[in-house]
């Protein structure tokens, strides 16, 4: 059964159509990578799923409860089922709280356990995220960026949620520290079995951590596939361009690649293009793309989803050349 089921989710900020009809699901124990560039709506989607912002329309089912339009009072007891790790641990931890209190806060809010069991739980969590027990008495400024992000992860997991949203959890960190946070999330996810929506622009991190990948462009999903299928043969022209643009850390491979350079830039989400939102930049667009919105539909034998008129039902897709 799905831990998270998002149905036709819409979130508008005034005229900005940040998320414009997204449906997806995440199963128990699964990591879904949500990739896209700035302005794609991926962060907003993560915030809608955790109800940090009100939802304009659509449904967000977490463990069988639609939380999209619940009042704060009705939502509160359900909040222990899901939590979020933010991008920048320096600004998402209260500098005046001790690490132990930060991690115990979800337990206090949900009235889980008493003081001594909470203290024991904090010690257990610190151990799980690879920090020493005495750090419970420290303040965030005494920790490095990577250690702070470990505290964020411990806080998010303290009430044992079944869904974790990780919003660019490694983007503010150095490469060597990124590796340790990715390892940590991967290990905890395997051990504890929570479902994870991993929001990032880092394709290498997604390939490392996610089992399935959803690609977002200008408020809508353009492709959803298993990691192996997506990275081996991206079908949507935008996915193809995105994958080809991310430089590989290998000079031989990188310099022998065919790169697809997109013309123009991501249009404004205030006034997205009609038809396929990618058509003004798409090298293979046809007349139909400018008028008819392509549905996100199953293509090929595996059940992968693509929203493109040029991808055939059998999954064959136009290959973009440089």
């Amino acid at each position, binding site marked *: 059964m799905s831990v998270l089921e998002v149905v036709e989710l819409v979130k508008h900020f005034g005229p900005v159509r940040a998320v414009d009809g997204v449906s997806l699901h995440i199963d128990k124990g699964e990591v879904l990578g949500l990739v896209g*560039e*700035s302005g794609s709506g991926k962060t907003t989607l993560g915030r809608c799923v955790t109800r940090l912002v009100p939802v304009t329309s659509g449904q967000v089912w977490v463990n069988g409860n639609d939380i999209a339009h619940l009042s704060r009072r009705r939502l509160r007891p359900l909040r222990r089922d899901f939590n979020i790790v933010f991008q920048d641990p320096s600004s998402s931890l209260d500098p005046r709280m001790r690490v132990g209190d930060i991690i115990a806060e979800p337990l206090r809010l949900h009235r889980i356990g008493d003081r001594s069991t909470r203290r024991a739980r904090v010690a257990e969590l610190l151990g799980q995220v690879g920090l020493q027990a005495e750090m419970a008495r420290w303040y965030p400024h005494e920790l*490095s960026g*990577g250690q702070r992000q470990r505290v964020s992860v411990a806080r998010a997991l303290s009430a044992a949620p079944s869904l974790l949203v990780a919003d660019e959890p490694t983007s503010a960190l*150095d*490469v*060597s*520290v*990124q*590796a*340790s946070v*990715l*390892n940590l999330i*991967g290990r905890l996810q395997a051990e504890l079995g929570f479902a994870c929506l991993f929001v990032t*622009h*880092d*394709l*290498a*991190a997604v*390939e*490392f*951590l996610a089992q399935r990948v959803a690609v977002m462009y200008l408020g809508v999903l353009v492709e959803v596939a298993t990691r192996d299928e997506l*990275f081996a043969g991206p079908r949507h022209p935008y996915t193809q*361009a*995105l994958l080809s*643009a*991310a*430089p*590989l*850390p*290998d*000079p*031989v*491979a*990188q*310099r022998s690649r065919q*790169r697809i*350079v*997109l013309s123009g*830039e*991501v249009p404004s989400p205030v006034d997205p293009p009609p038809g396929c939102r990618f058509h003004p930049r798409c090298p293979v667009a046809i007349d139909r793309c400018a008028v008819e919105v392509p549905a996100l539909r199953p293509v090929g034998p595996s059940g992968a989803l693509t929203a493109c008129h040029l991808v055939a039902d059998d999954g064959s897709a136009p290959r973009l050349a440089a």
Partner: protein
Amino acid sequence: MSLLEVQDLTVRFRTEEGPVLAVDEASFSVATREVVALVGESGCGKSVTALALTDLLPRNASVAGAIQLNGVRPSPRARGRDIAYIFQEPMTSLNPVLTVGRQIGEVLKRHQGASSRARIIELLELVGIPLPGRRIGEYPHQLSGGMRQRVMIAMAVACRPKLLVADEPTTALDVTVQAGILDVLRNLRDEIGTALLLITHDLGVVADIADRVVVMYAGRVIEQAGVHRLFAHPTHPYTRGLLDAVPTPGRPVLKEIPGRVPVMRATSDACTFADRCWRVTEQCRSVRPVLEPGPAGHPARCWHPLGGKE
């Protein structure tokens, strides 16, 4: 002969918490038309090195060492003209109340005494800005992040500098936009012969554009090599650690480098990486390693370089 020669560059800061040694006797060079990547994590001294080259350090910094451009010590004026700097954040480094054309024009006037609309349009074309005749009258907020960074580059190359120093020029940008900016930088080298010193932490960008790589750690240059050699034969354990930390498909667990970059107060007789290194010995903690050719033939600052006899 090298275009830029940096010898024993040392930068100290006086801070409220005491002195900080940000750059510790760094030496490297950049040849004409060469793209050199200066690589390392935050705190390794790469940005401070770049700011020292362009004389943009704050007042609490003291700089020692020699910087030579074409074999001579450049005057402050020559530095401003021949070495240009591109910042990471194009939004905060452009003036929001002046049009694009006006800002580029001011650079031309200051350094060349005159500016013309034709020359500004030519510069906008050089950095791949479509419809330059229209963009010239627009304000920074009307441009996307990628277009703003192109304007920054146009300003930087307005006076035909010999060397462009770019500090993380694509870090704030999306990958599809980054690809275009890297193409612009490559074109500048090919078309007007500008050398590039690229400060970056992104090994993908290094693999894409650099001819040669200088790796810094805790203020010291710890390894340098041609790009292919460095990726194929990393010799310093830190370089190896950086390369292994990048997520790679098929690797179940990523390699981590335990600990963090130390803040150096004063120069030390130890290897600055000793506390994080898995090959550390007593020698590393008591004798400062020198930058000398390792087993793969290129210089590394390590007593126990990789690739030799174990």
